[in-house]
């Protein structure tokens, strides 16, 4: 069967883990398709296809061949190597890896690797540099695209 992608190597380094997590991890394998809502505590790795909302308290990883198409997606951190398409809002620390295809509106923080495809709106909270302060009250980047 397909290679299991549980790539969280570089990502977990800058993360203060050890938060209270109920339950063990979950994995949606490459040959699995879920239509519906996934919620709960713990980490979730998706190498299959998910159509629906995802809301987990832990880390969400979408593997190279995995895809998530839904409305709202929420997790502590979201690492995408495959496809993520959300009509609604994606909340969490989003990391868009090389080769991935992401189309969503993000609230939280985001990092986009070179070679990744991203389309959507980013709503990130950060302090503007002093020279820019006063121009716009909200630090909000518009629709951006990078490929």
């Amino acid at each position: 069967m397909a290679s299991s992608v549980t790539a969280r190597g570089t990502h977990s380094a800058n993360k203060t883990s050890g938060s209270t997590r109920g339950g063990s991890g979950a994995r949606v394998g490459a040959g699995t398709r879920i239509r519906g809502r996934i919620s709960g505590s713990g980490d979730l790795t998706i190498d299959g296809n998910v159509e629906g909302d995802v809301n987990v308290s832990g880390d969400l990883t979408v593997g190279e061949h995995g895809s998530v198409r839904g409305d709202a997606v929420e997790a502590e951190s979201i690492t995408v190597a495959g496809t993520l398409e959300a009509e609604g809002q994606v909340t969490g620390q989003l990391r868009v890896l090389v080769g991935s295809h992401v189309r969503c509106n993000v609230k939280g923080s985001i990092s986009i690797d070179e070679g990744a495809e991203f389309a959507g709106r980013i709503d990130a909270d950060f302090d503007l540099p002093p020279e820019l302060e006063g121009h716009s009250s909200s630090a909000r980047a518009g629709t951006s695209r990078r490929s």
Partner: protein
Amino acid sequence: MASTVIGAGITIDGEITTDEDVVVEGTIRGKLTAKESITIEAGAVVEADVVSGPLTVAGSLTGNITSSDRVDLQGGAKVIGNVKATRITIADGAQFKGNVDMDV
């Protein structure tokens, strides 16, 4: 290790279709269809119609079961629903309410 694992803290409302093995430790409501084996661990709650290969139940399952192979209801399992399978075992300590159709 099974290819698809629904962990203890996870709840899925909807339809799951897979051609891999599935282990359920969490909660599933809806429909669960697998070509290979399904294992419903102790503590898991499944409120769904289940279509599978070999099925092992140690947790709680409410729904009709259709298995192309055998169904094992282990001690501590609680199953409410009709079972259609070629072979079935109901262990001492398993609770079961429903009809069994062994296709004879």
